[in-house]
């Protein structure tokens, strides 16, 4: 392959990368452009403060913002300790065949489609919650959070395991050489040194939880209200988009979808940047 051919191929690589990067910006740009009518007449704060009542001309999405924050935070509250524990189980407590089996099982779990969690959630979890609390339909914040925490767990567990493994083994060997146990090595060497990785894993999983559509759509109830308790029905920004999508395209109601999209974009970008900043600090520490 002569020089000109090589140069052509290398230019192709360059163009692919920049096209892909441009896409990220284009996504935001399109939503901004299409949601503009809603913002145009200085209604920006109205979006956040008003209730959602399209027939009255109110397009506030604050109930949905609260719904998103509530459900995703609650799911992380459930998931974080469980995943940390499971990761400890895989990386520290178990050995040999069991360790391999556990890890492979978690890896397989990452492949379970989200819609299945939602589907089983409707018929199994919702019924259980309804019977246990004896209130409402069972389609509520709690049900959605529980299922959501199950969905984000496998990826978070693997992330934590990788963080543990990234701690240089020479640190830990010193503890073992002093007669320490694996648990001690984990508690006093591995855990303190992998903390940045753990926080990053948490942040990224929170982003995934915020961005989920189907579980919230299927089992959170979808009532347009700010949830007051765990068994209240709620709606997230993501399910709001899916539900309002059926409306007339030209209406302002529809344009509100783009406002939801913008918020979601900004939330997740903020989390990514946070993870990035933590990551860099983590790298410096590891050196």
């Amino acid at each position, binding site marked *: 392959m002569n020089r000109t051919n*090589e140069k052509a191929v290398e230019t192709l690589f360059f163009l*692919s990368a920049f096209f*892909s990067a441009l896409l990220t910006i284009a996504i935001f740009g399109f939503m901004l452009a299409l949601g503009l009518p809603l913002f145009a007449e200085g209604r920006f704060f109205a979006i956040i403060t008003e209730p959602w009542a399209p027939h009255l001309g109110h397009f506030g999405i604050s109930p949905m913002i609260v719904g998103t924050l509530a459900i995703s935070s609650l799911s992380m509250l459930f998931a974080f300790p469980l*995943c940390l524990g*499971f990761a400890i189980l895989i990386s520290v407590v178990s050995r040999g065949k069991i360790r391999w089996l556990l890890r492979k099982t978690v890896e397989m779990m990452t492949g379970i489609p989200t*819609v299945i969690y939602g589907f089983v959630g409707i018929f199994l979890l919702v019924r259980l919650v309804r019977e246990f609390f004896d209130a409402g339909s069972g389609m509520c914040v709690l049900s959605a959070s529980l299922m959501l925490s199950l969905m984000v767990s496998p990826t978070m567990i693997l992330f934590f395991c990788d963080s543990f493994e990234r701690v240089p083994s020479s640190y830990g060997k010193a503890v073992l050489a002093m007669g320490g146990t694996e648990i001690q090595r*984990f508690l006093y060497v591995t855990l303190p040194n992998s903390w940045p990785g753990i926080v990053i894993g948490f942040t*990224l999983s929170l982003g995934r939880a915020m961005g989920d*559509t189907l579980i919230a759509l299927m089992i959170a109830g979808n009532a347009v209200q700010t949830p007051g308790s765990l068994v209240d029905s709620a709606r997230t920004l*993501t399910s709001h988009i899916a539900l309002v999508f059926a409306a007339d395209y030209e209406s302002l109601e529809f344009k509100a979808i783009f406002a939801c999209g913008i918020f979601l974009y900004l939330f997740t970008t903020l989390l990514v940047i946070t993870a990035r900043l933590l990551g860099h600090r983590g790298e410096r520490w590891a050196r």
Partner: protein
Amino acid sequence: MKRFLELAVPIFSWLCGIILLGAVLSVVGYLFVHGWKSLSLSLIFGTTPPLDALLMKRHVFNGLFPAVIGTFSLVVLAVCLAVPVGMASGIYLAEYAGAGTKAILNLFFDIMAGLPSIVIGLFGFSAAVFLNRHFSGNIHPCLLISSIALAFLVLPYIIRTTQMALEGLPLSARMTGLSLGASRLQNIVHVLLPQSLAGVVSGVILAIGRCAEDTAVIMLTGVVASTGIPRSLLSHYEALPFYIYYISSQYTDSEELATGYGAAIILLFICLILFLLAFVIKKRVSYLALYRA
């Protein structure tokens, strides 16, 4: 206090393991218990003879076959679009980009990877509307638009796995090829890529799984509950995950619900088989690339 912690941690970790595994087992188990009865050829092909359906001689009206074909077409199209662009970008990042450019591009791709799938779907829809307005009135949400949107969804994963696979190679691997007189591109193609193929391929398989299971993107870009096998790239289509969602709220009797369970089991099977495939292909591909005489 320390003693207590050291004793409590293993117990706690086992507890977490049992809880999580128990939860997942209940989900999957519940699915099987309620759905295995509906698993049969008629679930997929309805009242049409399977052979006729497969050879496209007759339409399937009350089976999952159109949804299966729809999902399959989506995956193939999306992956064919995403893999070349993704690998090329990943190669650029790992081998050519300077430190500053790399940092900025990585940030963009991380952002894209973190976007909710419904936002990507929204973008796909907006793009379709834009094209409809400014180019041709024939363009509306369809198989092609969905595939392109799905390609956007998985693009950051492929870029990332390609980049990490290449960057994971030790410096000596890089230097060996160059010291033997290879040009940069030759080094990438003949030395680095074959050695990082395992990582790249597993990234592709991950992408395939993601495309097969996604519902949010396709909901906004052209999937419908019932339309048969997609007639062309610009037509509506069915898909398994959407069917499952649709049936969960629109079922009229227990038989219809049972088909939902059946569809869920089929989708689960597809995703798990893909996972096993990734495991097997990883080893096979590396062997073929490097040791074939």
